[in-house]
């Protein structure tokens, strides 16, 4: 069997990244859009960790941790906006969120 190289990980990450972008670009449900963003961030993390392994230093892993922090902040704020929005408009569809004020 072929030994697993960095390229294998990069392909998996690319697949996850593309799935994430498809989710962001096509879904209407904001919750699922946010989840797709998490998918994208995970793909990036996987890339970083794979490169970290490839070069044999830990900068990539440290960056991955920063991205996890960022994802936590993003999820908290994003879901906060979502709840506030749902209270006002009773919808969580992203294509109905098209006004800057009401």
């Amino acid at each position, binding site marked *: 069997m072929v030994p697993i190289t960095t390229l294998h990980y990069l392909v998996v990450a690319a697949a996850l990244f593309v799935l994430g972008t498809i989710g962001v670009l096509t879904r209407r449900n904001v919750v699922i859009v946010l989840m797709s963003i998490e998918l994208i961030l995970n793909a990036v993390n996987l890339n970083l960790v794979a490169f970290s392994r490839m070069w044999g230093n830990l900068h990539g892993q440290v960056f991955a941790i920063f991205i996890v922090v960022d994802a936590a902040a993003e999820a908290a704020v994003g879901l906060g906006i979502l*709840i506030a929005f*749902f*209270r*006002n408009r*009773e919808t969580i569809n992203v294509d109905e969120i098209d006004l800057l004020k009401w």
Partner: protein
Amino acid sequence: MSERTKEQANVLPDPASYVQGTKLDKLTHSTSNLEFETPDHPYLDSNELIINMGPQHPATHGVLRVILKLDGEKVLGTECVIGYLHRGVEKIAENRTYTMFNPYVDRMDYVAAVSNGLGYCQAVEKLLNIEAPPRANYIRVILTELNRIASHQLWLGTHALDIGAMTPLFYTFRDREEILKIFEKYCGARLTTHAFRIGGCQYETYAGFEKEVKNFLTFVAPKIDEYETLLTTNRIWLERTKNVGVISAADAIALGVTGPVLRASGVKWDIRKALPYANYADFDFEIPTGQNGDTYDRYLVRMVEMRQSLRIIEQAVNGIPEGPIMAKVPKVIKPAVGEIYHSIEAPKGELGYFIVSDGSTQPYRLRVRPPSFVNLQALDVMVRGMLVADVVAVIGTLDIVLGEVDR
């Protein structure tokens, strides 16, 4: 209205005068918290929830159904649906003779059957204008007070269980058992005792009755302390009961709440003192009152009441006179045309019987004023704005028995 009841109405003190530290003009019914609170924010409510608590629910003390309107966990309003245990007791009374109806009253508040019987017998006695002999009255007082302790013990156990403390339930039931044993020895039944008859008691006390009651007094006093060590200063118990289900004295009076619930709000109103029946006037005892009208005060009031009941029983047992136990009652009870309202202090509050006689052997109309039913009205006032867990605590503290609410 017959002459006697008019006289009684004149004697009846104004409950408002018993309020401690509250000015009379403030005793108007405050409606502010009786309306459904509309949320003062402009948002649509995303998480308003209607929950159907009961009739099959572990903490509604029977078949009470409470419809809760919740905002998250906060109670916006309640609606009680009752009648699942309705047996038409009042209607049955119209088709039974006065004597035949006597056992039925035990089935209303089955936790305090003796009190129910006492109230009914005394109401009919009043209608017949007869008096039970003193020895019968002493026996009645002893049994009724024992029953008050039993009822409070059952309340304490289930109330604590509702709040999450499992253990007190078993302790209280262990001690309640001793009371039920005395009942069983006296009249052969444990729960629906049918202990009293119109005009006095049917059964003479059994041999060793006094001794057993005295033994019980020495047995149960430390047990009540035991309950208190488990709960009174327990931090979680204090947090769960203090400032929970607060009802002001004014609201309590306006809603007709009686019994320990009323007394915990600071109103010193106890029919045993205010309008002494049987021979309560002979005994020396105190009426405990609370200040805050919260669940903790109601707990304390009931705990003190148990001890006061012990005092009454002790005096009664020591002073029990010899003599007949039955007054002269006609074989066929046919009261004169008239109506009567007689109320006693049942463990849960004022238990009243309103009997209209048309001169026949059966009541023309019998109406019961059950304390649980009236107290249950206060539920909505007490739980609005509180949390779901408090609804359970308040239902427990109101000490309702659904047999009595639905009749």
